[in-house]
């Protein structure tokens, strides 16, 4: 009798923590939206949601790739530099038309990702080291290829960045389609099952005959390709290729979105919807603080608080 009375609150607390780990990010989004509805002028307008959606799209696309990499137990710090490479490619190949330029940019992104993948999967170098090297080298290469910002005049590419279909910007359509594709990949495809298995227990995956190295190679290449798509969209939106500043620190935003969304850094589990919500939460936080004209240091502190909260909730994972 007494035992069960004392036991119950603890169980409830654990259950609450677990629930918060999985769904806390949605609660966070709801709270920030609620705050803005009450306190921010003109928040409830279609134009505002459009702006937030357009701004979050590149981070979200990068975070999708990051979620897959993190699910395998790895990390990809090179995404921002791959975006810079992609921007440089757009500028260098736009003479052949926008389609060729975009294909080259995404192809180069996939290649850069594959280079990461080869070193992680076959040479067994730690992902953080490999992708750190690519982060430094990739931006260096991008700056050698395109030393300064170059304006984009091609009307099709500009339309991609600023035009809409059914009142929804192309940039947002592309992000939504990629979310659907990656969600399908994770839930329904063999590749998705395998990458989670690799992250859960690499040794077990190897022993059960899974092509672990090929899976890893594919995941890093995919992350590179997604980052390159984000680079294309940022370039189209900015109407300029700016390899010097495009994607700087985006790896941190993407990792934050993934972790806040409930994907553990240790791998073996991936939450795509949570990642989307994580990216949206961070975007809304930044937007809220800018709209209320608070100093940027507040933005950083608010982001820190959210990250610590998410990590705190995720810490219990081992015990479940």
């Amino acid at each position, binding site marked *: 009798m007494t035992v069960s009375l004392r036991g119950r609150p603890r169980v409830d607390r654990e259950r609450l923590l677990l629930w918060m780990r999985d769904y806390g990010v949605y609660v966070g989004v709801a709270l920030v939206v609620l705050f803005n509805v009450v306190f921010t002028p003109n928040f409830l307008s279609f134009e*505002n949601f459009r702006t937030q959606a357009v701004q979050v799209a590149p981070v979200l696309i990068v975070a999708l790739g990051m979620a897959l990499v993190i699910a395998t137990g790895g990390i990809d710090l090179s995404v921002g530099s791959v975006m810079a490479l992609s921007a440089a490619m757009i500028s260098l190949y736009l003479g052949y038309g926008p389609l060729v330029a975009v294909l080259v940019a995404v192809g180069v992104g996939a290649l850069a990702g594959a280079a990461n993948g080869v070193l992680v999967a076959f040479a067994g170098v730690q992902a953080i080291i490999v992708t750190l090297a690519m982060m430094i080298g990739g931006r260096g290469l991008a700056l050698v290829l395109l030393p300064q910002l170059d304006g984009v005049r091609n009307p099709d590419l500009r339309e991609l960045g600023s035009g809409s279909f059914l009142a929804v910007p192309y940039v947002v359509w592309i992000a939504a389609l990629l979310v659907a594709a990656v969600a399908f990949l994770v839930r329904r495809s063999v590749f998705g099952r395998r990458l989670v298995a690799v992250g859960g227990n690499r040794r077990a995956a190897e022993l059960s005959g899974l092509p672990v190295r090929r899976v890893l190679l594919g995941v890093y290449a995919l992350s590179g390709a997604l980052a390159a798509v984000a680079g294309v969209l940022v370039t189209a939106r900015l109407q300029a290729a700016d390899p010097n500043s495009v994607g700087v620190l985006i790896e941190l935003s993407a990792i934050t979105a993934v972790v806040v969304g409930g994907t553990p850094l240790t791998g073996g589990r991936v939450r795509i919807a949570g990642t989307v919500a994580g990216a949206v939460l961070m975007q809304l936080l930044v937007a809220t603080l*800018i*709209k209320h004209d608070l100093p940027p240091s507040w933005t950083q502190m608010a982001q820190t608080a959210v990250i610590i909260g998410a990590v705190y909730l995720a810490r219990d994972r081992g015990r479940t």
Partner: protein
Amino acid sequence: MIEHHTHHTGAGTLSRPRRVLLATAAVGAALTLAATGCARGEDDVAAGNAAAGDTEGQAQVLDEAASGGQTCNAQDHGIEPFDLTDKKVGFSQSEAESNPFRITETQSIKDEAADRGVELITSNAQSDFSQQISDVQDLMSQGAEVLIIAPLNSDGWKPVLDQARADAIPILTIDRPINGTACEDYVTFIGSDFVEQGRRAADQMIDVLGGEGEVAILLGAPGNNVTTDRTSGFLERIEAEAPGIEIVFQQSGDFTREGGQSVTEQLIQSQPDISGIYAQNDEMGIGAVTALNGAGKAPGDVRIVTVDGTQAAVEYIVDGWIAAVVESNPRFGPLAFEAASAFGSGEDVGTQLIITDREYDADNAEEELPHAY
């Protein structure tokens, strides 16, 4: 069983590195090939506005009044007079030459050295301050006898100053000062007055808004003295001269076009009545133009004032998107070498040489466009 397994792994690791190396090399080669192979940009004109022929009217001009009366000569500094043409000059650039200001600044130094037939060695610290300290030390060990430094920060130069004094190497700083004693630690500082640039941007803003309206500021990188000075000058002048103008928004766009664009997008959502934007450099101002354009605004709906004077920004004045640009002239070459040469021949040189910056607005933008960098 175990032995066999170990043996197998051993054989695997022997051949694996070679395979990996080959694969990595192949991917790397493909990457480089794709990157450079058969590129074709939008137009085949190489970016090179710095090479624009006519330099008349682009040169920096000294503002005698602002420069102050303190002077320095070789004797006071404890350095033997010298002929600059015999000397090796070292130039340390602070930031990557990836924006028009730095490109033009470095080019100006190189051109002037070539014109005067002076041997020049250069370095670039890529925005890393400790790198710049070791860059300058390297320049000295490579035999630089006169130093021109574009410092990333004003503080933290003691090791360099000590060594330069010991070796009797004169230092000239450009665009930002080094904190120290003039004529002891350095010869002269040549640069713009950033506070004054802020004041003049405020004058332009007051002018185009008729002294009334809500104004937003796109700040530069936080913690940078250029940001602080351009802000304080602007606020001071607005407060003193235009009580009808209210500063309703101050957010950082980090001196980048993308930063200016995304902050402006948020701004026009939450404050649709904004009448003016003061961008602390041209790049953020151009980002603001892209954002306003994307939100369906017409040129002139929101009046933008920026600082720098790049060609792209001055072209936007011609198009009506930007109201005015206060110049920050990066062509330090002629003045820096003139000062160094005068100092070498024993003449008095002002320890603070403040240059006059131009202004571009709707009245002169078209005709002055060739002077922009």
